[in-house]
């Protein structure tokens, strides 16, 4: 009796217990998934490569090594002695420095595209789904119309008309990337809106936009994050495709797509490293994102709970 009394006093006097949020649970589940953690590590290393590469690269990405020019297939091989760790490209520029730069640009395109999509798409979809009725109909028809435009054509047109620049590339990718996200967010919001906690907030008198930000969006995030991690690689692929066509980033800037394009053009000359190194980074990054996306989906899946 005395013991239980003491225990109860102890409990009452205790500091607030730290709860396990759904996010904490999801993190624990994610960390148990070996493939996803491996993907995360790969992405981390690729990011490090992009950030720290310029510091350790012995060559600048713009400088031409005149010693190898004219004999790229022999002298431009990957070697530690010349400092061209990844070899050189057909013009004698250091491929290591160029791959670092391509990685920076491709990751930036992917992440900026996904961020635009997450922010604009989620808010747009949540607003349309929450208000419903006519507002929803008008907003989603606008999305349908934008979706029906062949975006690759528009992107190419934008780049041709307004000149090829990074800004135009971001605008073009930003314009199309949020559409799918808006649809996903809207569909989820429709089912969240009828939840009783949303009704409780309405009955209490919480303002509509506060409800969207406090109750709808946090519950959307699970789906949104999963989709965003799968969106980053597709953004990278778009950009690579555009660059492959020769419309993307411009020299002296480069990206994975441009490097792969250059490498593919030189394949007949026996300089496989020009294709191999950029392709290697491209592929492991895509795999990394896909595994992380898969892991997140499993970790955040409410049915698994």
């Amino acid at each position, binding site marked *: 009796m005395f013991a239980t009394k003491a225990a109860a006093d102890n*409990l009452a006097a205790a500091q607030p217990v730290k*709860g396990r949020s759904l996010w904490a649970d999801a993190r624990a589940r994610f960390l148990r998934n070996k493939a996803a953690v491996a993907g995360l590590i790969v992405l981390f290393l690729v990011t490090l490569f992009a950030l720290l590469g310029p510091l350790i690269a012995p060559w600048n990405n713009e400088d031409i090594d005149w010693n190898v020019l004219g004999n790229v297939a022999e002298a431009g091989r990957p070697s530690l002695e010349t400092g061209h760790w990844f070899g050189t490209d057909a013009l004698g520029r250091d491929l290591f420095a160029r791959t670092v730069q391509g990685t920076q640009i491709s990751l930036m395109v992917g992440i900026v595209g996904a961020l635009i999509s997450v922010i604009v798409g989620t808010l747009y979809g949540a607003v349309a789904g929450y208000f419903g009725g006519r507002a929803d109909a008008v907003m989603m028809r606008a999305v349908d119309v934008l979706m029906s435009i062949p975006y690759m054509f528009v992107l190419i047109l934008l780049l041709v008309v307004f000149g090829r620049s990074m800004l135009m590339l971001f605008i073009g990718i930003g314009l199309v990337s949020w559409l799918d996200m808006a649809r996903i967010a809207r569909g989820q919001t429709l089912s969240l809106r009828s939840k009783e906690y949303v*009704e409780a907030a309405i*009955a209490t008198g919480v303002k509509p936009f506060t409800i969207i930000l406090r109750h709808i969006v946090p519950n959307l995030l699970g789906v949104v994050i999963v989709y965003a991690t799968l969106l980053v690689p597709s953004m990278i692929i778009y950009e690579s495709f555009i660059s492959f066509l020769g419309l993307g980033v411009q020299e002296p800037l480069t990206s994975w797509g441009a490097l792969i394009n250059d490498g593919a053009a030189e394949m007949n000359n026996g300089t496989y490293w020009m294709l191999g190194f950029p392709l290697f980074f491209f592929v492991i990054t895509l795999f990394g994102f896909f595994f992380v996306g898969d892991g997140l989906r499993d970790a955040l899946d409410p049915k698994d709970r």
Partner: protein
Amino acid sequence: MSDVLLEADNVSVTFDIQRPGAWPWTPPDKLQAVKQASIQLESGKTLGLVGESGSGKSTLARAIVGTVPISSGTVLWRGQDWSAASPAERRNHGRHVQMVFQDPLAALNPRMNVGEIVAEPLITHFPDLPKAKVREKVGAMMERVGLLPTLVNRYPHEFSGGQCQRIGIARALITEPELVICDEPVSALDVSVQAQVVNLLKGLQRDMGLTLMFIAHDLSVVRHISDRIAVMYLGRIVEIADAAEVIGNPCHPYTRALIASVPIPSPKAERARHRPVLQGELPSPLAPPSGCVFRTRCPIARDSCAAQVPEFELISGDHRVACPYHAEAGLARAE
């Protein structure tokens, strides 16, 4: 009649139902979820609202709170018409009227911890309140509903159904409202927890002078907590009287059937009892029967019932019944 806090006068709620597969421009079907319901909530008292699933209890409650638009009639709050209020006024009004929900877990946002959930109405209506004060009030309210204040950082999924309902009650009471609408607050809980939650509500009502509207489909729970009971069937209120009167002298045949369906916790008495079981299903509210809506299942129905809508008659004191043959209903049971 003492101080009337809220009065619903002839409130009707109609929903538009788009027929599946219809053209977008086809006029939608009208579903009358609540038809001309009038109730009065007296300050400090409890009104019980009973009826089977689909009878419009929850819709009436939501019409009073304002989350469902009223298609006709008025809701008067302390004598002032509330149905024409602007959205902003309505939001401010949320301080005085709060709701407790049926599914305790679904009523709590899974991404917020308990402290945030309970504090939400407070920071909505008193945004200038300092954080420390909010925390203090939340702690006090959690203690009041029988939860350890140390649990503020926990999340809803870490609690049992009864505890979640206590959290829901704490959230409803933190702004010290005058009216709390409980929409089947105990029907998702098991019986022992039901009693705890009902007694908690009664205690809080006594201490804080709350007016309660208590919705349930279980008469035995409603009888325990209510001062007055209204019985609903297919969107209409068919009988309203003081709790003892409804239980002791039920006049509408539907009320009788409801009372007869309450199980007696004694197998012997249960077997010996004559039990008029209702036949059939609740008719579709899209196409309610003509005249008296209960006639399709009524044991004493006759031809005239189909012809005209029964008046909501005052039969004694403040006991109203919507059945012209209520005297015979009593005879039918005596046989």
